[in-house]
């Protein structure tokens, strides 16, 4: 009897509860699965909940989002796309060309979001004249992370050129420290190589060679020279770099076993998690460039075409949650990046993030802000793959710089 009344009561309550709970559901596929990433995402979904919508999490981790893309392909083929999807690099633009993404022009026009975004960033947010995605954060790729105690002991200051950096490495080696912590994974090596290409030759050359894939620039002497410098950097690496994860390499710098690491600012979280403080225990400075540049990576969300007004309303709420300045601020404090919006104050961020923010302003003004090749913001994957093949092979063999340039040109032409 008691059971029956309970059942009856719960059934009569069901529709009421559902109505009070949510105006609708936003389902999102993303590849944020680590603890800080999940906590950061919660900032956006809390905002969404305050607008009366429920978040349905469809995280697909692994392989820098390759698994999540697989999930999306399946869902689209089945005619059941999620409400929203996280995009890296060209992914959003590629899907826009397939005609599955909803135009966000009305929302951008209404809220003036494009004015808050750096023009270099719009390349990845806008397909022709259509806004297709909502950037939440910006990572900077060209950072050097150093152990301050090790640097002080060896008497090294922040290097101002790649020659100085290599010289500093030799000093560290003499002091019995591994100068540069790195793994032999091609993408880790490519981060170093593209930093050299940009820092030594400038962003104009980078744009020509890496973004436009201009054959003359690719086969130029500057490229040979960049490989020569990479060969010198190879001399700063220990023998145990095989299969070393980037986070393990960061750990070597944190423990003082190694002097520095060249890695995007996601490495910062590893130092912070060990209770180390920027400026006091570890140093962050950009890779040494003749003219300062800023290599960016953004995470953005796109929403899929739908005719149902309820779904469109849910998408609008999701978009407004992402682009909310307060959300962008709190999200990025946890994630370790800086807000994609340039108009959000970063006063209470840490020293590295502040430097990143100031450098971005300067780079936007001077036109020296470019997308990072390694993470897919310069050349599409079929070409960036060639870069990582050649650079990865060059680093572990005794290939000559001239042969490397030739392999690069042939590989790019083959993939065109």
């Amino acid at each position, binding site marked *: 009897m008691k059971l029956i009344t309970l059942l009856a009561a719960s059934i009569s309550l069901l529709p009421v509860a559902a109505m009070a709970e949510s105006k609708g559901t936003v389902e999102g596929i993303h590849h944020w699965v680590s603890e800080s990433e999940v906590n950061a995402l919660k900032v956006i979904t809390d905002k969404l909940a305050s607008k009366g919508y429920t978040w349905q999490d469809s995280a697909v981790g692994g392989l820098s989002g*390759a698994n999540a893309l697989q999930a999306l392909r399946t869902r689209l083929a089945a005619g059941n796309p999620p409400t929203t999807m996280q995009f890296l690099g060209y992914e959003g633009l*590629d899907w826009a060309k397939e005609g599955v993404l909803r135009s966000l022009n009305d929302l951008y026009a209404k809220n003036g979001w494009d004015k808050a975004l750096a023009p270099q960033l719009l390349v990845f947010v806008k397909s022709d004249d259509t806004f297709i995605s909502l950037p939440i954060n910006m990572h900077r790729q060209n950072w050097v992370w150093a152990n301050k105690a090790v640097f002080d002991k060896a008497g090294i200051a922040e290097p101002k050129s790649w020659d100085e950096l290599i010289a500093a490495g030799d000093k560290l080696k003499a002091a019995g420290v591994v100068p540069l912590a790195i793994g032999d994974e091609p993408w880790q090596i490519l981060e170093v190589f593209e930093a050299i290409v940009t820092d030594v030759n400038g962003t104009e050359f980078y744009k020509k060679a890496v973004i436009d894939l201009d054959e003359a620039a690719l086969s130029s002497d500057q490229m040979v020279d960049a490989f020569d410098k990479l060969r010198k950097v190879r001399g700063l690496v220990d*023998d*145990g770099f095989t299969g070393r994860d980037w986070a393990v390499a960061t750990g070597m710098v944190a423990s003082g076993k190694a002097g520095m690491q060249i890695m995007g600012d996601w490495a910062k979280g590893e130092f912070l998690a060990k209770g180390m403080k920027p400026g006091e225990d570890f140093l962050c400075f950009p890779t040494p460039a003749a003219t300062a540049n800023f290599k960016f990576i953004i995470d953005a969300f796109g929403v899929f075409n739908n005719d149902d007004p309820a779904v469109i309303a849910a998408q609008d709420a999701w978009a407004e949650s992402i682009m909310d300045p307060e959300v962008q601020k709190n999200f990025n404090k946890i994630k370790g990046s800086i807000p994609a919006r340039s108009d959000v104050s970063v006063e209470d961020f840490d020293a590295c993030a502040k430097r990143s923010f100031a450098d971005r302003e300067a780079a936007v003004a001077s036109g020296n802000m470019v997308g990072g090749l390694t993470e897919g913001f310069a050349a599409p994957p079929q070409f960036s793959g060639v870069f990582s093949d050649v650079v990865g*092979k060059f680093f572990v063999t005794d290939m000559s710089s001239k042969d490397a340039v030739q392999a690069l040109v042939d*590989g790019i032409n083959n993939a065109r």
Partner: protein
Amino acid sequence: MRSTLSLKDRFSRWLPRLVLSPSLVAIIVGVYLFIAWTGWISLSSSKMVPKYDFVGLEQYIRLWSTPRWETAVANLFVFTVLFLAITIAIGLLIAILLDQQIRAEGFLRAVYLYPMALSFIVTGTAWKWILNPDLGVEKVVNDLGWTGFVFDWITRPEYAIYCVVIAAVWQSTGFAMAIFLAGLRGIDTSIIKAAQIEGASLPRIYLNIIVPMLRPAFLSVIVLLSYISIKSFDLVLALTGGGPGNSTEMPSTFMFSATFRRNQMGVGAASAMMMLMTVAAIIIPYLYSELKEARNEH
């Protein structure tokens, strides 16, 4: 009376076909249809998503002018030959030694067979550490006092593929041993005794009499191991990630990265077709000879 019998007859004739038809449909759709689809994609200009146009053999030309693919093909041959030869040699040796009516044979058998129970991911990760010069064998031997000892194959592109062979051999030797042991148990001991009376030495008995009698066991081992080597994917990913510098790339890892990571679905499909043709070149003559033999026996 007669009609019910024939109905029963008809039913019993149709029953096997009825039972088999669902799996037949599943195989036709799940295997052959998708082989055909992959073949079609390999002739199209597909990049991120399938495109149903026709560009002839363009993707195959592109595939064969990719240095990474050439490395992958060369690696597949080096790996298959070494993996098969070493696994079979060691597996057979252990099986013969275990077959000498020794004590605690059951325990030893389990010890040798145990690696087979691990997944290739576990094997690959463990061997990655064992072979790392700063963590594994080299460091242990150096710490023991032999400071000049160097074993850094996994860091050297020209030797790294042999590290994959070592790990794969470690994993699969027990399996080869088990099959050979079963084969040895099926051999009548009176043959050995008769040969001994004739004055043949033990190595000679094994080499000239026992091993040739193990032919069926050899065939099963070779077929099963070749298929392990062609589909080897997880071991390479866990052990070397295809590195250093793509020197341990295999056709399967190449296919995966082209199709799913580099938006080159056409090239990926072409490489899958090349793998299929390689397998077919081995399996079809084998099946043909087996079927012919079966027919001759009648």
